[in-house]
């Protein structure tokens, strides 16, 4: 195959390779090698600073993991959080996108307002919400108490169920806009003639939405859903800053538990086995993502 290339083409190939090399080098060092190393670490015992030599221990950490209630809890928390927030984000995202596709005055400002929650650091967004949720001085309890809706302050972040709901709300607030933007781009690519034809047939607005808009939005919605699910499955700074995983471990995500095992409990190799499991869950999802995209083309 190579022999059929002219010398000029071969030089182009070499230049191309040279252009790609720095990127591949950085990606290998920062993404690929660390994953492989995490896998090796998860089958062994060593120390974080390398002072203790690596010793192979086989499946020991994975056996421990299978019997670790806190690990299963964090997996459950992560899946619950994902399952609760994604549908809400999708509904709000579609709603916002349809809204933003209308013509009205002040559209620029409205678009900006929708973009802001996404553009700001999640860690700092979370602090803003934690301040509003604050049981003693927060905005929500101030309004609820003053208007007489409740008699005693609500402990938004101190109750297991409420804490999970509060976390979901922050996530939905932040990322519905991302969903909306992707879906909006899809909306704008739907040819106007389709709607004109629909109107000729006497379709109502709702029928138009259900029979023209939604089917044509399947692609963008799928992309948004998968990107967001993978994001939700690795959520870290949201529980880190909102509740530190509490009360007890009611909002401790997989990422947060792995972080605590590695850097708070200094169980370096055990932590590696947790991140390997998390990696596998997300990797399988990302493969599904790539295959769905391929089939779309």
């Amino acid at each position: 195959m190579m022999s059929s290339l002219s010398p000029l083409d071969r030089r182009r190939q070499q230049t191309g390779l040279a252009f790609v090399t720095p990127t591949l080098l950085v990606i290998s060092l920062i993404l690929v090698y660390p994953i492989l190393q995490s896998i090796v670490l998860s089958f062994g015992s060593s120390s974080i600073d390398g002072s203790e030599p690596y010793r192979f221990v086989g499946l020991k950490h994975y056996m421990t993991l299978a019997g670790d209630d806190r690990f299963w809890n964090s997996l459950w928390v992560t899946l619950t959080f994902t399952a609760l927030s994604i549908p809400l984000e999708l509904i709000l995202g579609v709603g916002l996108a349809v809204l933003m596709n209308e013509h009205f005055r002040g559209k620029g400002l409205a678009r900006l307002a929708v973009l802001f929650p996404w553009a700001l650091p999640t860690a700092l967004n979370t602090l803003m919400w934690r301040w509003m949720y604050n049981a003693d001085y927060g905005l929500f309890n101030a309004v609820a108490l003053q208007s007489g809706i409740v008699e005693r302050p609500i402990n938004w972040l101190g109750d297991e169920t409420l804490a999970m709901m509060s976390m979901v709300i922050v996530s939905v607030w932040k990322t519905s806009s991302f969903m909306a933007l992707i879906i909006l781009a899809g909306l704008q690519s739907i040819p106007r003639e389709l709607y004109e034809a629909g109107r000729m047939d006497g379709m109502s607005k709702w029928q138009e939405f259900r029979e023209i808009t939604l089917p044509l939005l399947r692609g963008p919605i799928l992309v948004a859903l998968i990107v967001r699910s993978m994001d939700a499955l690795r959520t870290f700074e949201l529980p880190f800053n909102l509740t530190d995983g509490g009360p007890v471990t009611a909002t401790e995500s997989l990422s947060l538990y792995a972080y605590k095992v590695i850097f708070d409990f200094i169980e370096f190799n055990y932590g590696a086995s947790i991140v390997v499991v998390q990696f596998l869950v997300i990797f399988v999802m990302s493969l599904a993502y790539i295959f769905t995209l391929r089939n779309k083309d």
Partner: protein
Amino acid sequence: MNKRPRIGLYTLVALSVVISFLPIVWLILTSLKNTAGIYAWPPQYWPDPFTFDNYVKIVTESPELLLYVLNSFIVALGCTLLTLTIGGLAGYALSRIKMRWGAVLMVFILAVSMFPPVSLLPSLFQNFLKLGLLNTYSGLIIAHAGLFLPFTVWMLASYFRTLPPEIEEAARMDGMGLMRIFLTIVIPLSWPGFVATGLIVFIFSWNEFPLALVLMTQNAMRTAPVGISLYPGEYAFPWETISTATVIAIIPILVITAIFQKQIVGGLTAGAGK
């Protein structure tokens, strides 16, 4: 078009704008109250007295909070320049040169972009410790570049594909090398793509949390999201300082988003749609 219920539309729009801005506005109002006002009952909805004391206090009493913002700037700017440079080259090669493994490489780059950052931590921490890269700007810049290069390559490659190839072919006929074509023809033609990609990478890097938390262990080297989150301890939060520091740390992002709204939205939707 027949008359539709515009009031309903405007109510919904107003509601979404208010909900989007509420946490930010409440935070700004908090930063403009004095300490008594922040913890007052009945609650103060509007600062009384209205004061910039918290901002003055940050400058005079906790300048490390400003240092965090500076660190974020250095890291985000460095990461943006590095990713645009090497990601631009890679994106160009992958979009214009027929390489044997080109398509496989693009899928590979997309696949690795989905790795969860926390799964990189044990190894990255250990290697950075060994190499003396912990608590260095260059260390975090390279780490962030690794995270955001896949996005950059995909964005720029898809932008280069929209350029008409005739100009480059003519330049090749004239005997120009690929590097010269890239520098003198492709970059000037595709700067909107570079701007959109660069802005998004800058925001990504500014906002990144797990790697910034673990790879910068010294207080003086922390980035704004991490430094503010860890200030001063985990339990007793001085909200007057936190709110003010947070406002300062998000102003750059607010300004960038407001000015370059179109480019960012365009880039994001193109990136996610591909």
